[in-house]
Every structure is written in structure tokens, then in C-alpha cells.
């Protein structure tokens, strides 16, 4: 009995003194940590990059240092307090050195050390995103969240569960801001209590952008950088399941147009509405004088068969990148022109997003179609207007889908959603871009519990950077949405010039379709937008 007690005490003592000594053996075994922060570049103001060690061992000991600052951690999960992390990142050194020791059968081993570089390019303090269960048609809980990425504070600024009831579902999507500001925001509420919710001039507004002359309400937004306009796509979306593929889902727009919403006048006007073109994903240039968008040529006849036809033809849908000049003062459009012929390479380009410094345009390139999120082959693609180059960003792409990227306000950081961790759940990743246009190794949004991304069964999508916190509370949003009817937007015609600069009158027709509802559930098929 005594011996057993002594043995247990000795074991406990050994366990408690878990620290490597000078006899630790050097190992060539690669360190495997999750999330992978090895050799990444982090902004100095990011939240602690907590991680867990995946190498199997009985005990772990980690030394993290930057110059004179040294932090020691025991255990598989390496989590920093705020002060520890601040001392590591605020100090003058440009990188954090990390040495991990593992103990197996009483023998300590030092694994290959790694470092984290620190960038003085600070990242915008806030991000927003939609937290969504992975599903096909059903949804129950959809949260719009704001996260302070200098720490771990997350706030749900609106959730559909605050409005919907047991039998009337409400969908929320596409939170978007003007100039990264909390004073200019919009998101869509679909179905029950539906409308586009706008926040500007310190007040909430709810608008129904579906008019008799547009096929749907506004969908994918891009807020004009200098004027009170938002460009939207109109989409008539369908989805279908792949019977046997790693790509589980196919989302296709049967019809697309692009419209401009004039916030002050609560009016929409057409931008591109060619019935043989599927125009989508508007994105403003930094000066607001050019609108980029993507479009695929598709001229199957309109009718009940078009929806089935387009699914059959899905691999022939190649979206090219176009640009269209715009005079924001007179709201006059110039003729569009082709920027990148993705179709020529049997590819499809989507989601053009311009950096605020005007140098870059980042987009997603995939094999076909308009919804890269559900295509494993989707990669990020960069146009560097200064260098005149266009390339797939191999240094940050993964074997899985990349999508919904966004630039930070200083054009130094990119955030996007990626499925690289398990192929299904989208997670937010970041990368730094240097003066040469080269991206650093991507890193995951730090989480308090480093295991979070592995265990969390929701996905994150449509992330946005913000420079200030949202001031409207969830309760205010909920009360407003529940108690306010959407104000119908008026319809205006478009002002456009031809190649010679002459003003032309457009015989306007929205692909010949009117009267589509915003969101319908029809015989098991969800019309998303």
C-alpha cells in the first residue's frame, strides 16, 4: 500500500515537473500545429495566435520568445494571455521564435523550431461575417457577427432567430459596408419580414428593391466609395445536388442582371441587362469611376425548360471579367469592355474585389459557373495593375475552394473564406501582401480555443473588414425588422454613352422577365435570392 502511494506520488511529481532539460534530443520530426501558424506573417495587432500541437507525445513544453521576452507554456494547447501576447508582439523584434519540446516515455525531444513574422502593417480591427450551418436548402440559425480580431470578442449583431417563428423562416445574408464604416451598412433579410436593411445617416431603413422592371431584389452588393450608391446583382438562383462528386452542390443563376441603387432617392436603375448575358458580382474601383463585374454568355431560350437546361449546360458557363466606366456625379455609364477572357481558358471568373489603393483586383477563378464556394477547384486570382500581371495566387491557394475575399482598408491584408481544413466548412484565413505583390503564407483567424475550427460545425461566409464597431444592437435590428415594412424602391432608366461618348437611350428590358418574387420555396426547390 505504502509502495503504491509512493509510486503514485512519484508519478505525479514527474508529471508536474514536465520541463525539458539539457538532455533533450534534437529531432528532425516536423512540428505539426493547428491552426498552422508556422512561418506566417501576422499583424502586430492580431489576437493571440493560440495553437495546439498535433505531434503525438506524452507531454509538451513550448518556449515562445521575441528578443528578451520569453514565455513558457506546458501542454498540448498553447494559449496566450493578453499580456503575454502583447509583450511578444509589441516588442521591437520582427519575429516570434517558437521551440516545441515533446516528451515520450520520459525522453524529451526538441522539434524543429519555427517562427512567426510580425508585420507593422496593422490590420483593420473588426471583421463581420455570416455564421451559417452547412446545409443545402434548410436553415434555422443564421447569425451576422462582428469580431474584434485584436482579441476574441465576438458579437452577434443580428440573428434571424430574433425575427422568424416556428413556421415563418427568415434568411439573412450579404452584410456589406461602405468604406469599412459602421455608419454605412446593409444586409438582406429574405422571406418573413423581408427587405434590404440599410443603415446610414444614423438611421435604419428597410427597402424592397424588387420592382416591376427588375427580376429580383438586390443580391450581391458593392457600395460606391465616394457617392451614395450601391451596385447590386439581380439573381434568379437555383441549386441542385451532385449525385456522385466531391463537389456536393451546384448553385446556378438562371438569370442575372446588374442594377444601381441610389440610396438618397430610393431608386434602382439598370446597369447591365443583356438577356443573352448573365451579369453578376459588381465591384467598384477605388475611385468609383469604373464598375467591374463578371458575365457569361448564355442564350438558351427563356421558358420553363431554361432552368433544367442551364444545369445541363453548367460546364459551358464561363464568366469573363468586364469593366464599365461610370461618372458618379451624373450617374452616366460608358460602354463596357472585356478585361479578362476567362472563357478562352475554359475558366470562370467571379467576385472581383478592388484594393482600396487601386493597385490590385482579386477574383476567384474556377472551372465553370458563378458559385465558386461549392467548387473544389476555386482559386484566388490576382490582377496587379501596376505591374500589368494577372496570375493564380499559388502561394495562398489550397486544394479546396477559396472564395469571398476582401481587402483591408490599407490594402495590405486579404481575408477570405476557404474550405482548406476539411473540404466542407469554410473558415476565415488571412494573408499579407508585400510591396512586390507577393502574399505571405495564409493563417487562420485566431480563436481562443485552438481546437475551435476543428470542432465547430458552422461555416463562415461573406467576411468584411470594418474599422469601427457596429453601434446598432441586435435588439434594435430585430425590433426594426419585425416592425417595419420594406419601402418599395422606385425604378429609374439608365443614362449611358456609346463608344463615341454620345448619350444613348436604352430600350430597357430586364431579360424580358418581371414579377419574380424575392424568395420562394416551390416544390422543394429554394430560390435563394
Amino acid at each position: 500500500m505504502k509502495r503504491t502511494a509512493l509510486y503514485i506520488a512519484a508519478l505525479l511529481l514527474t508529471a508536474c515537473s514536465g520541463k525539458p532539460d539539457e538532455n533533450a534530443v534534437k529531432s528532425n520530426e516536423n512540428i505539426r500545429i493547428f491552426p498552422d501558424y508556422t512561418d506566417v506573417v501576422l499583424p502586430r495587432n492580431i489576437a493571440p495566435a493560440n495553437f495546439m500541437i498535433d505531434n503525438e507525445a506524452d507531454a509538451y513544453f513550448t518556449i515562445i520568445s521575441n528578443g528578451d521576452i520569453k514565455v513558457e507554456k506546458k501542454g498540448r494547447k498553447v494559449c496566450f494571455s493578453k499580456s503575454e501576447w502583447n509583450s511578444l508582439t509589441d516588442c521591437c523584434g520582427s519575429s516570434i521564435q517558437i521551440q516545441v519540446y515533446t516528451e515520450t516515455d520520459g525522453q524529451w525531444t526538441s522539434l524543429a523550431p519555427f517562427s512567426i513574422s510580425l508585420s507593422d502593417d496593422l490590420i483593420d480591427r473588426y471583421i463581420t461575417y455570416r455564421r451559417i450551418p452547412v446545409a443545402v436548402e434548410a436553415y434555422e440559425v443564421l447569425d451576422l457577427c462582428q469580431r474584434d480580431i485584436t482579441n476574441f470578442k465576438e458579437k452577434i449583431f443580428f440573428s434571424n432567430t430574433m425575427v422568424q417563428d416556428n413556421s415563418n423562416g427568415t434568411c439573412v445574408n450579404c452584410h456589406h459596408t461602405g468604406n469599412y464604416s459602421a455608419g454605412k451598412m446593409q444586409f438582406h433579410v429574405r422571406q418573413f419580414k423581408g427587405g434590404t436593411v440599410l443603415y446610414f445617416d444614423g438611421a435604419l431603413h428597410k427597402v424592397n428593391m424588387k420592382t416591376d422592371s427588375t427580376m429580383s431584389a438586390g443580391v450581391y452588393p458593392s457600395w460606391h466609395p465616394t457617392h451614395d450608391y450601391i451596385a447590386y446583382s439581380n439573381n434568379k438562383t437555383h441549386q441542385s445536388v451532385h449525385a456522385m462528386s466531391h463537389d456536393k452542390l451546384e448553385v446556378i443563376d438562371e438569370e442575372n442582371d446588374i442594377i444601381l441603387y441610389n440610396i438618397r432617392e430610393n431608386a434602382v436603375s439598370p446597369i447591365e441587362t443583356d438577356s443573352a448575358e448573365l451579369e453578376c458580382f459588381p465591384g467598384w474601383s477605388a475611385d468609383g469611376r469604373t464598375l467591374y463585374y463578371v458575365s457569361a454568355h448564355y442564350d438558351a431560350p427563356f421558358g420553363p425548360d431554361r432552368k433544367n437546361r442551364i444545369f445541363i449546360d453548367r460546364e459551358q458557363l464561363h464568366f469573363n471579367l468586364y469593366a464599365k466606366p461610370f461618372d458618379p456625379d451624373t450617374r452616366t455609364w460608358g460602354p463596357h469592355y472585356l478585361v479578362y477572357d476567362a472563357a478562352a481558358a475554359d475558366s470562370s471568373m467571379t467576385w472581383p474585389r478592388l484594393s482600396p489603393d487601386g493597385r490590385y483586383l482579386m477574383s476567384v477563378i474556377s472551372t465553370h459557373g458563378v458559385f465558386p464556394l461549392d467548387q473544389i477547384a476555386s482559386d484566388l486570382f490576382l490582377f496587379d495593375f501596376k505591374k500589368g500581371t494577372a496570375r493564380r495566387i499559388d502561394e495562398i491557394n489550397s486544394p479546396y475552394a477559396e472564395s469571398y475575399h476582401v481587402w483591408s482598408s490599407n490594402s495590405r491584408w486579404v481575408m477570405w473564406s476557404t474550405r482548406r481544413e476539411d473540404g466542407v466548412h469554410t473558415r476565415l484565413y488571412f494573408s499579407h501582401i508585400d510591396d512586390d505583390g507577393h502574399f505571405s503564407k495564409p493563417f487562420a483567424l485566431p480563436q481562443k480555443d485552438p481546437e475551435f475550427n476543428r470542432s465547430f460545425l458552422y461555416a463562415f461566409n461573406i467576411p468584411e473588414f470594418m474599422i469601427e464597431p457596429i453601434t446598432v444592437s441586435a435588439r434594435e435590428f430585430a425590433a426594426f425588422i419585425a416592425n417595419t415594412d420594406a419601402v418599395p424602391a422606385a425604378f429609374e432608366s439608365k443614362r449611358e454613352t456609346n463608344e463615341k461618348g454620345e448619350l444613348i437611350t436604352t430600350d430597357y428590358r430586364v431579360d424580358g422577365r418581371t414579377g419574380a418574387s424575392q424568395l420562394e420555396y416551390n416544390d422543394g426547390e429554394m430560390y435563394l435570392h
Partner: protein
Amino acid sequence: MSSTIRKTMPVITATAVLWIVLVFTQKTFLFKNADLSLFLFDWNFLKESFLVPGGFLGWAGSFFTQFLYIPWLGALLWTILLMTAGILTVRILKIPESLSLLAILPIALLVIANMSLGYGIFIQRVQDYFFAPTLGYLLMLAVMAAAWNAQKGWHTAVILTVSAFAGYVLAGIFALAGVFAAGIGLASDCGRKNRDRIIAPVLSAALCIIAPLLLYGLYTRYRIADSWTMGLPTVSDDQWTAAVRLPYHILIVITSAFALAKGFFARTGSDKRHRLPLQAGIAAVAIGSVVLFWYKDENFRTELEMSVAADNFDWEKVTDIYRNASERHLNKEKKAYGKRQTELKAVQDASVYNDILKEYEDRFFEPTRLMVMLRDLALLKQDKALDMAFRLRDGGRSQKSRTQIPMAFQAARQLYLNYGLINMEYRWCLEDQVEHGWCYGTLKYMAMHAILMNETEFAAKYLDKLDKTLFYRKWSRSQRPLSADSLAMSKALPYREIIPYMSFDDRMSNDRVKVETYIMKHFLEERDKQATHQFDCAALLWAMRSQNIPMFWKALSQYIDTATEISLPQSVQEAIILYSSLENTDMGIEVSKKVTDSYAAFQKYIQRSGFRSEKEASFPMYLRFGNTFFYYYYFVRGLQTF
């Protein structure tokens, strides 16, 4: 025998009887409840429960519900909790011996709430409904006891306030109900100061209104209007939700009434007049209600048993359960048939004739479509489908439930997975978890999907979750090596039985929430050149199910193409002779004499029988020709699938 024992004896007896009944008659139902729930030994899982008021109650409830995996143990835990609730009801509410059976009323309501749900278990939307309300009732009693035992008025006020706020966060409406009942009880307590008797109920009523309103700012998961129903079970159908919640509303009203009657109980404690009739009346109400509302549909029970066996890939058991269910009451059916025919003989009027047929409908066995689907699947897996599927009874009886629960929510994942339609299985796992939350079953099927698709990281996500469970950990650990080794996986069960059905090209598809029609369409219209013989067996089975003659000939030719030896099963021969005769063609396929004779006998009997309708003829024809495809073709028609 002491007074305390006498007072609690009815509760102890009732719960002991309940345990025996549950263990002997509801094993599968109890197990299925466990399978549809989830409890993870994980800090984040606990934290997530605090996203709604009463979420902690759900967390605690799901802790207990996991033990229903071993039905006798789960049932024992539940009945112990019910017994505790009953004993505490007697003690806290000071129920006198002469009315001691009143304590079984709350138990009866909690039993009714769980055992009346039937198909509702597939559309529940709370973390736990089985144990959580029982725990909620215990908390309600605890709040009352704490408030009533406080010595000073301000102590009571503090207890009520803390119970309202903290209790609401933990247990939702049950804590508020406790506060409310405590206030009512204090008002009727003659031993208290008049001031306290006024303040306490006013305070408790005010707290019940104010606490949810003030706390709403902490939450984003529900509407403010739903604040006073948090913690109560919900199903994804409004009317059904109201019905599901009714027992709990009655429970709260009854407990509050008991609290109000505390003074009366004290006065009548020793009054033994009318004791026997009163106790008998209470017992009759309690037992009668439980028996009346206890969901007893045999098809539901059979479906559950078949479904659990199918989850274990025990195909022989699936078939046996079906066969037992269809043959169990054959003698009773024969008697009912005799009686019905006697009544029909005397009837000339068509509407009376139809009324009699309808009246007797329930006395004859008819399976639900899901039972047939599971049976066919099991027969296919045993390579007996084309021999046996049309020899067993068939049909499409509707579910006995408030609304028809789509098969998609009941069994899409197991049907699709086993037919090799694994992306559709993935889709319905996701839809189901979004609508009704994650459960062990869904996690397991998601993992199997990922393993079949060689998606190792994705499989790990779900296996990691199951590693954190008590009863599914072993399964999860057994699958982990397979998720990283596709060769080992392809040789292991159940995967090796599924892979042959995955012999088709990718295409876009949507089942429009109709599982059976989707599977039928898949096998009839989507055969590709790499189809295996297993695929063609299924295609031929579905072609015969469809009663579509051109489809049958096409499927038969494909079946013969991929067969290694051509020995046509009896049902297929019957289809050949029947369809050849109907189309007046000779396909040149040899049919045995036994089948030819059987068809001749069938035709002869049809011509001679004097039945006035197909419905009337169905049962006697089944007795004579129920083991033939001819019977299926002529008498199993117009089925509806959900």
C-alpha cells in the same frame, strides 16, 4: 406502515410499474430517443447550451437521455427521477394521505408528454425533450421548497428573485413556473404575516414578467414573444408544438393549484371520509389518461425496430421484423374478414358498402411505405429481393400522426447511404441537423459518407465528435483506421455492400423531399455503363415496383447482361408471364411450369370470384395469391409516398 410510506407508496408503485412497461414494450422507442439526441463530454457543448434560456436544462436532459442507449438503464433513470418528483410533490406540497394519489398526476403528465409524441420524435427542435421537462419539474419543486422554507420575508424575496433570474437562464419557463407557484403558495399560507402573503405573490408574478424581458438583451436566439415558452419542447409544426406543450401547461397549472391548496391539504390531512372514492377517481384519471394518450401504433413500432436494425446493417433482422409484423395478426385478420363479409353480404347500398370496408380497414395489416422500403433494401442486401419482395405483404398505409412526417426526415440517410446515393445522404444529414439539431445518428452517417468518399479530414470532424460521447466512442474508434485507408474500407462492412451501388456517373439531382420516387427514378433512368449486377438487381426490383411494363423489359435485359448465371427468380418469371400475356407478346424467355400454372389459377380465380371491389377482394386474394407478383400487380395500386 408509517404515514410517509403510505403517502409515497402510490408514487413508488406507479413508477415501478412504468419501468416494467417501458422495458418490456418500449425498448426500441427508448433507444431511438437516445439515437436522436446528443450529449458530448465537451466544454464547448456545455457553453452552447447557454445560448437560450433553459438550454442548460436541455444539456442536463441530454446527459440522461444518452443512457436510453441501454433502454433498461435509461428507463430506470427516468423512473427514478419521476419517483423523486412524485415523492417531493407529496412532501413539498404537503399532500395528505387521503389524497396521496394526487402526486401521480404530475408524473402522469410527464409520461404522457413523452409517450404520446409518436412520429413527433423525428421533428423535435430542442436539445432534449425526454428528460429535460422532468428535471424542469424537479427544479420547479425545489424553487417552491426553498421559498417556503425561508424564515424571513426578505429571504423569500431574495430566493424568488434569484430563482427567477438564474433559474430562467438555466431552466427557462420551469423556473418561472416554480417562482409563480411559490408565490401562490405563500399567499395561501395562513402561518405567514399578511404583508408577506400579499407581497410574495405580487413579487413572483412581477418577476415572471420582468426577468425574461430584462434578460432578453443577453440573447439572440429567439423572439421576445417566445420568452415565456423557453425550455418547453418544440417540434417543427405549430399545431403539433401546441399539443406537445399542453401536458406541461397542465402540469404548471396543476402544481400551482396544489400550491394554492396547501392550506386546504393541511386541514384535510386526517379526514378519511371519501378517501377511497377520491383516490380511485384520481387513479382512474391518471392511469386512464396515460393509457389513452400513450402512442400505440404498431406500424410506428415496427418502423422503429426495422430502422434500428438497418442502422446496424442487420438485414436479416430487418426482414424478420417485417415478416413477424405482417403475420402476427393473421388469425385476427381472418376473423375480421369473416365478420366483414357477413356484414357486406347483407348490404346493397354502395355508400354503406364502402363504409363497412372503411370501418374494417384498420383491422387488416398494411405496412407504411417506409416499412416496405426498408424491407426491400434488406432483401436486396441479402440478394433475396427478386425472390422475396413480392411474396411479402405490401401497401402504403399513412402514418397515424397529426401530419405526415416526410420519409426524408425519418430515414433518408439510411436509405440513400445503402443505395449508394451518398451525396443525397449527405444532403439529408445536413438538412436534418439544421432543422432538428445534431444527433448521434446524423454524426455517424456523416462520418460514413466522408469515409466512403475518402474525405479523411471531413470524416475526422464527425469521428472527433463521436469520440466525445459515451456510447458511440467505440464505433468511432473502429472507423478511424478505415477513414485513412480506402482499401481497408472497401473490404469492411457496411462499405463493401454499398460500393457496388455507387456504380453510376455524377449528375445533378434533386429529390424534392420524395425519397421513394427519387430512388425509383434513379434506378430506372440513371443506369450507366459501369453498372454492377447489384445495381441491376435493384433496378429490376424498382422496375417491378413501378408496374411499368417497358421499364421492366429494359431492366430485365440489363439484369441478364450483368448476371453471371441466369436463373430467373420466381417473381421475375411471374412478371414475365403476366406482362407477356398483357402485351400479347412472347419474349422467348422460358418460364417454369409452376409459374405458368399459378398464373392460370390466378386468372381462373379472378374470373370466378364474386367480389364487388378490389378492396374487398384484396385480403382473400392475398391469402391465395399473396406470394405472387400477379397479386402485387393487380391489388397493390394507387400507393402514396411521402
